[in-house]
């Protein structure tokens, strides 16, 4: 049952530095890094040691609480360093890539013919399971629980997001294989959203339910899709997969190779020439950002992921496991004289309190990382609701997370949300509260207490 979804509440944050639709091969990076912290809540158990040789697709570690979930190397090479933090917690696993890449052969699988169990085992063993996330809790899916439905967003509405119509172009065969396989793992449907006026390669696939979405961000968030189609109730599980990762899953099924390649957008107002790159997950960002990007000593914030929910990384950092965007914007650690009362023309605001972004909604802004004010208690009301399309009371659920009332969190809809759903409320927050962090901690608490 296809459904058109029109979102009215939300906010399109228009920023300078969207990527031009040309893609280049990134200069091959010599080192690749896996960071267990990319997989929220995971406790890794190592399979390989420092010095061992791996093929692309060979398992490197597994999930302590669920041994069948394997995490594999994106490249072939040698594990040269395992960085540990407090209590010997594994922070990162660094792999030096070989000049010529060799792949582990997982064997070709025809998803049409294979059984659900075989598909599941195949995805788990090959390292593709890590791409499947579940709600509640926004963590890697528990393979023992079958989802009531699977949700995939084929429409990226976040500011400066990679255009999925462009990055998925020509990948129809892989996408089809992946959704066919996934469709066998659920009793329900595979729901896919595409932009209303888009030309998405996903739209022509078989065995899925297509929903056309329109309206401002977060219309493209998978959380919005779930809330409008089939919200998660207590005891239920749904899975979500990022559209770009379907390509990796599909290629694995069709060729037997775990090919960690992905088209990544380099965006942001600090980038000289924003464009797309073909890069492998875990690669060094330095090889990408310095070529017609930024100068060596630029005072910038580098974000692996989109500007609202991504992770801050250092210039010698790595592309994380789930991102298809690298955003670079100016740091804003400077004072502004009477910044709180003078008229503001160069920043975005949803109010009109001497802020004038409402005068030209088409203008692209160049925002920096300044918070534009200090952290305060929640004071104003009603402004979150303007940018929050889910049928949930945002301020009340945030407060329930802050005072850790599990019953109230459950009643207000915690099973339905992920931190990224609260990115816009965090952006507009007058009190500069860290909404996504509050929700993440709330979800972790529920996972621990209720499970």
């Amino acid at each position, binding site marked *: 049952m296809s459904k058109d979804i029109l979102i009215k509440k939300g906010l399109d*944050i228009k*920023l300078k530095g969207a990527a031009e639709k040309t893609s280049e091969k990134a200069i091959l990076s010599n080192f690749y890094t896996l960071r267990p912290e990319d997989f929220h809540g995971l406790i890794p158990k190592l399979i390989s040691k420092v010095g061992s040789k791996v093929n692309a697709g060979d398992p490197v570690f597994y999930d302590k609480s669920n041994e069948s979930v394997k995490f594999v190397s994106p490249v072939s090479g040698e594990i040269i360093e395992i960085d540990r933090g407090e209590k010997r917690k594994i922070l990162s696993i660094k792999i030096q890539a070989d000049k010529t890449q060799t792949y582990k052969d997982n064997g070709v699988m025809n998803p049409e013919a294979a059984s659900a169990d075989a598909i599941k085992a195949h995805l788990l063993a090959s390292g593709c399971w890590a791409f499947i996330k579940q709600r509640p809790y926004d963590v890697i899916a528990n393979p023992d629980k079958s989802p009531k439905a699977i949700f995939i967003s084929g429409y990226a509405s976040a500011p400066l997001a990679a255009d999925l119509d462009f990055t998925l172009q020509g990948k129809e065969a892989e996408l089809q294989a992946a959704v066919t396989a996934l469709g066998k793992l659920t009793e329900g449907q595979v729901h896919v959203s595409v932009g209303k006026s888009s030309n998405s390669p996903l739209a022509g696939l078989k065995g899925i339910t297509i929903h056309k979405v329109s309206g401002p961000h977060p219309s493209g968030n998978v959380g919005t899709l779930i809330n409008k189609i089939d*919200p998660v*109730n*207590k*005891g*239920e599980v749904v899975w979500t997969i990022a559209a770009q990762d379907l390509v990796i899953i599909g290629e694995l099924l069709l060729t037997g190779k775990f090919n960690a390649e992905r088209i990544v957008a380099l965006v942001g107002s600090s980038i000289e020439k924003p464009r797309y790159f073909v890069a492998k997950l875990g690669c060094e960002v330095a090889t990408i950002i310095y070529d017609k990007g930024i100068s060596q000593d630029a005072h910038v*914030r580098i*974000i692996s992921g989109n*500007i609202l*929910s*991504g992770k*801050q990384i250092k210039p010698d950092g790595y592309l994380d496991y789930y991102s298809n965007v690298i*955003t670079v*914007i100016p*740091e*804003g*650690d400077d*004072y*502004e*004289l*009477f910044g*709180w*009362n003078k008229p*503001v023309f160069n*920043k*975005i*605001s*949803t*109010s*009109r*309190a*001497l802020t004038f*972004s409402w005068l030209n909604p088409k203008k692209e802004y160049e*925002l920096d*990382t*300044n*918070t*534009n*004010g*200090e952290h*305060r*208690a929640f*004071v*104003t*009301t*009603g402004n979150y609701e303007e940018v929050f399309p889910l049928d949930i009371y945002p*301020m*009340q659920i945030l407060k329930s997370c802050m005072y850790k009332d599990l019953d109230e969190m459950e*009643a*207000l809809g915690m099973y339905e949300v992920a931190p990224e759903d609260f990115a816009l409320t*965090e*952006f507009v927050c*007058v*009190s*500069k509260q*860290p*909404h*996504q*962090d509050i929700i993440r901690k709330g979800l972790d608490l529920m996972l621990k207490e209720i499970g």
Partner: protein
Amino acid sequence: MGLKSNLNNLKEKYKGTKMAPAFNALHTFLYTPNDTTHNGTHIKAADDLKRTMNTVIMAMIPCLIFGMFNAGYQHNLQVGDVQAVTSGFFSSEFWTLDNFMIGFWKIIPLIIVSYGVGLGIEFIFAIIKKHEVEEGYLVTGMLVPLIVPIDIPLWMLAVAVVFGVIIGKEVFGGTGMNILNPALTIRAFLFFAYPTWMSGDKVWVEGAVQRTKDIAAGANLDAISGETILGSLAQGKEMTHSVADMFLGFIPGSVGETSTLLIILGGLFLIFTKIGSWRIMLSSVLGAIAMGLIFNQIVDAGIIVEGSKFYGLMSTPFWEHLIIGGFAFGTVFMATDPVTASQTNKGKWIYGFLIGFVSILIRVFNPAYPEGVMLAILLMNVFAPTIDHYVIQGNVKKRMKRLKAKVA
């Protein structure tokens, strides 16, 4: 940028010390801080709490300026130095420097005491409790001088501010946590602690109290009558002011509450800037109209007849209730306080409507408390969390129902 870097050095020096909140409060008043985002959203919208509060203050400035002129005008009118206004809002009798200076010298001390005492307490609490000085009092401190009678002794105001800020706000945890509107808590304290200074016919015009004392001491002077419209109506007297005077604000009353015209302009500004809730303002007006109409019907039906003690206020046409007393001011600037109002959009409709409804009810039925809007807002402040609770339960029930439908 010498000042900027010097201040930054001082900030580093004070970091972690007891004085840090006090220093930061002054520092951030000059400069928005150099704080940057960490994880979460890497960019933030332009608005902060200071800007929000500042916008509310800007909306009140016209009322304040008008209040200064009006204080002098009411005084001079009673003394006989000026003629009553004749030519509308821009009458030359009203906008004179003489009028302004009388009001200016009476009202500036009120503002200084209000801000001085209130912010002083905020700073002390911020230092004790080691949190930043929050901006809530910026608005409260401006509201307070606007809602007291012009002749209120400064020490009374200081005592009330101490009470209102500590009991009304700080004991609950400061800005954002309080249940009652602090400005109204201050006014209510004055009202019940010093009733002779807050009601009656002697306090609303500058100099009236002093004149009464002089006369009692044997001076041969005319008494100054400073009665509000509500006060005289409650006593069953005839309305002596024209509708235009009431709407434009050439009437006795609390310092900043008299000009409905300027309050409406302030309200429209707040709605336009999206700082004030249009839902509360509109529903409050609707509530007042509803109650006013009910009373008018009762009078029309002959249930209450002339001579009854309720007749004066009950027979007042419903729309006149909107422009007399503190109703307009309360609706626009006090009921919309986001912390003490309902926090859900549906709740705001109910909350606002009841404020309007109850204001007129108290105003009519309790002649001792002609200023019903103050008590109505305080009462609804108390009920706001309950209203929200039921609104949110609606959402919770929807979720429960969905779950049950699945299980069945």
